[in-house]
């Protein structure tokens, strides 16, 4: 049985990754799962300088999911290179560093710094709905997405994944713009912008007013967008959005994802990533699938 998948020349032992922002740099969940078992750890977004993030409350539960507006709190690239990369290098898993920025120059600075490090890929966050500058501003207009992708590609030593926002009219246009600008892969979906009002306090549940929705409730939207994007481009797609178990992961793969990421469900079941690896193998065994590549985009 072969569970290996390849994205932009990087081979992953299996298609199971962590979704940026839900797994830190693996230190916290390393207590629950064997990081060696995962295809890749996708880190929390890192910027050129430390970002303090948003005021609290930053999280709220909604039906079948949650809203968050963390605001990309992160220690900046210096601490990240010194602490987080060496931590992850102890494990036999691939390292994908999520990069965030307020301006094109910010992204480029981080991408260049990472160029000299021993990481496998970068995921460019142009889709965080919770910061005022940068991020989603690049991810909602195809021209802006094209330009930022093109510029980053000029400076990137490792392959880049553009992480797309679902908060757009036509996901295929965004996917095509990223591909045309030279992205090596795309990942989707980031969270869906949402809002919750506490009717007893008559106040927003989250200090930022809006937050990004994740969790099982968004899965059908994510599967649809992964399917559309995968059918619009020839570069690999990493699918995510509400994945709770191996069945969900298989669904994304059948829709066209080469790999999948698990996000909010880590909070619900801290063992979920490792369980999905095992569950995918069980599915392949049950249906006599010899190579996981047979499943990618198998439902047309």
């Amino acid at each position, binding site marked *: 049985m072969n569970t290996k998948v390849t994205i932009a020349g990087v081979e992953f032992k299996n298609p199971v990754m962590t979704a940026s922002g839900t797994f830190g740099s693996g230190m916290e969940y390393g207590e629950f799962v064997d990081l060696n078992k995962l295809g890749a750890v996708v880190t929390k977004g890192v910027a050129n300088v430390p970002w303090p993030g948003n005021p609290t409350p930053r999280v709220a539960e909604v039906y079948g999911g949650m809203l968050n507006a963390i605001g990309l709190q992160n*220690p900046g690239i210096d601490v990240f290179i010194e602490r987080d990369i060496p931590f992850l290098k102890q494990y036999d898993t691939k390292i994908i560093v999520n990069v965030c920025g307020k301006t094109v120059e910010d992204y480029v600075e981080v991408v260049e710094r990472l160029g000299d490090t021993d990481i496998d890929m970068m995921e460019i966050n142009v889709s965080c709905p919770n910061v005022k500058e940068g991020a989603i501003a690049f991810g909602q207009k195809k021209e802006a997405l094209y330009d930022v992708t093109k510029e980053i590609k000029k400076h990137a030593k490792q392959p880049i994944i553009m992480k797309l926002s679902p908060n757009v009219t036509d996901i295929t246009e965004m996917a095509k713009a990223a591909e045309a600008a030279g992205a090596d892969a795309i990942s989707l979906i980031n969270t869906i912008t949402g809002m919750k009002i506490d009717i007893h306090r008559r106040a927003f549940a989250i200090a930022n007013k809006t937050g990004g929705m994740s969790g099982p409730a968004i899965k059908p939207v994510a599967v649809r967008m992964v399917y559309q994007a995968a059918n619009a481009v020839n570069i690999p797609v990493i699918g995510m959005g509400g994945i709770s178990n191996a069945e969900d992961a298989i669904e994304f793969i059948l829709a066209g994802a080469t790999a999948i990421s698990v996000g909010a469900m880590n909070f619900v079941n801290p063992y979920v990533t490792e369980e999905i690896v095992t569950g995918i193998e069980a599915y392949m065994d049950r249906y006599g699938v010899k190579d996981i590549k047979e499943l990618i985009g198998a439902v047309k």
Partner: protein
Amino acid sequence: MKEKVTARVISQTEIANNIFDMWIETGLAKEAHPGQFIGVYPKNKSTILPRPISICEVNEEKTALRIVYRIAGQGTTEFSGYHAGDSVEILGILGNGFPLEEGRGKKVFLMGGGIGVPPILQLAKELDAEKKILVGYRDSNLFLKEDLDKYAKVYVATEDGSVGTKGNVMDAIRENALEADVIFACGPMPMLRAIKKYAEEKNIPAYISLEEHMACGVGACLGCVVKTKEIDHHSHVHNARICTDGPVFEAKEVEI
């Protein structure tokens, strides 16, 4: 080592209006310290996140945990319907407890307000010091008072004045002319702010347990932060994680 486990409810009773007292049999009890907490998962899958609930007491054999919680929403409403023998999914042990060594042998106030009273019980049991317990409630709907009586003199304050001092725990300090070298506290934010101010005026350390909306409970999501005086060790931005760097902080270290 943190774990998510299936535990068993030993007993549950409503000890005051909307306040429930549940004993849970779990091996996690071996590692529990006063001031730490567990995440309790509702079974209803539309409510996905663990509910952070403080540890009120650990039994002698360290085979069971007691949690005392108030019904605050859907999750806790579900928990309140559990009976002896029911299973319950918990994540623990989470957070750092109260630093007992900072109080040992000293004159200590153990202060709890409202649903911040429960963690004071295990603290009162374990802390070897000259203890005075100050607890504040809204009204005569007291809870855990008799349990606390076993470990030290208990001073009660009620907002409506129906029991003890009329007002809050700070009023109880004044009314009884009490003094301490160290404070340990858990309660609502206005109470913790008053304690922080009092401790600064008296130039004594206060260790306060904070609360915030949490998602993961293990330090990964950065949802539950508090502004800190010094740069935090995780993100280097003056935002410590309440779930893992706390929930107990020295009052002078946090901006609340």
